[in-house]
């Protein structure tokens, strides 16, 4: 147990535990699906008690929702750069890269969505959450009022790219999406979908 006065380190430990719970849950959900995974299993795998998990997340659904709003999505390249067509494209590709790095999770999510599981279905929204903050808002700044519509279109197009790849490549997903050919086409599609800012200054 941390000594009294070591509050900062205690907070750090708590954040670490929370992150470890999320990671454990992500891999268990990916292995067995959302419905077939219990909070107890998630806790067991980490050598924690059930209440220790419930201290951080009130329910399995709450845990799942937190997973879907993973802050590590971010580290947005935009923050260090001026907003241009190029940096906007890079931002979108960075966002998409989060998904291509986690095929098992993507498959699990798609399975739940196809089965109509509510939290998973609600997650397919471009109008709130990290996509809104990191893609829609900068797009609005870059190209003005059409930004919202373009953002929704890019979201759906990329959802289509991801689903097609998950369905077509199966076990070869990781190899396939990291090939230069796939990445080049993907970039070209995003460049095409995001119009140049008015004035053509980019």
């Amino acid at each position: 147990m941390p000594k009294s006065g070591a509050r900062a380190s205690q907070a750090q430990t708590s954040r670490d535990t929370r992150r470890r719970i999320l990671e454990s849950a992500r891999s268990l959900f990916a292995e067995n699906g959302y419905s077939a995974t219990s909070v107890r299993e998630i806790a067991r795998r980490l050598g924690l008690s059930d209440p220790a998990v419930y201290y951080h997340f009130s329910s399995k659904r709450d845990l799942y929702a937190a997973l879907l709003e993973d802050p590590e999505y971010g580290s947005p390249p935009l923050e260090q750069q001026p907003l241009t067509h190029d940096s906007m494209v890079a931002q979108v590709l960075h966002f998409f890269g989060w998904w291509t790095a986690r095929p098992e999770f993507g498959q699990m999510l798609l399975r739940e969505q196809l089965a109509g599981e509510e939290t998973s279905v609600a997650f397919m929204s471009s109008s709130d959450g990290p996509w809104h903050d990191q893609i829609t808002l900068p797009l609005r700044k870059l190209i003005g009022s059409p930004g919202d519509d373009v953002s929704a279109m890019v979201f759906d197009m990329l959802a289509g790219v991801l689903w097609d790849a998950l369905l077509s490549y199966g076990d070869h997903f990781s190899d396939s999406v990291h090939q230069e050919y796939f990445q080049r086409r993907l970039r070209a599609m995003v460049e095409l979908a995001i119009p140049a800012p008015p004035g053509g200054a980019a």
Partner: protein
Amino acid sequence: MTAGDPPVRSRIGDETRQKILETARQLFGTTGFDATSVREIAEAVGLTDAALYYHFKSKREILSAIWDLPVEGGVRRLRSEGPFVPSQLDAITDSAVAFSVANDHILRLMCREILGGDQTALALRQQNRAVLRRTLYESFLTVFDADEADIRTEAILALLTGVNMKTQMAAGPDFPRIAAQPAYRERIRSWARALAGLEEQQAG
């Protein structure tokens, strides 16, 4: 059951078989293959389990037969002589939406089974997409070079998958009603036109 000669099917037998397949396709599509029992299918058709087993030896066999059912309406091949124009693109995306609506149940089932590793379902999906891809690509080739035709084709294919699947999953059984609304078709038309860049091509 004995493994004798296959039964000589009467017309009534064929109709029953057809009814079993249609019902199973719907049930598998909404409830999922694993969660649907042979008994449920039999009940929905108005048969006993035994009568159903006369037509199909197993649930798997029903699924295999479903993959052989014709899918309704393909993408219309609208290749005319002149260069590709926006109204032709509209016709292609409209027919892709109509295809998703007409085959709502089987498309859901197909995706689920592909995720479970069913190779027949995967081959079927690839086949459907190949027709749409070829139609778009050949049309774009009348206006753009091969690279650009390829990217614009892929972008529109991905868009159609994304919008249709997302709506299908979010709307559940309401999908055919929602997708039949003019606003839905218009949104896809306008996004596909943006990705096609045909207007710019004509202006420039």
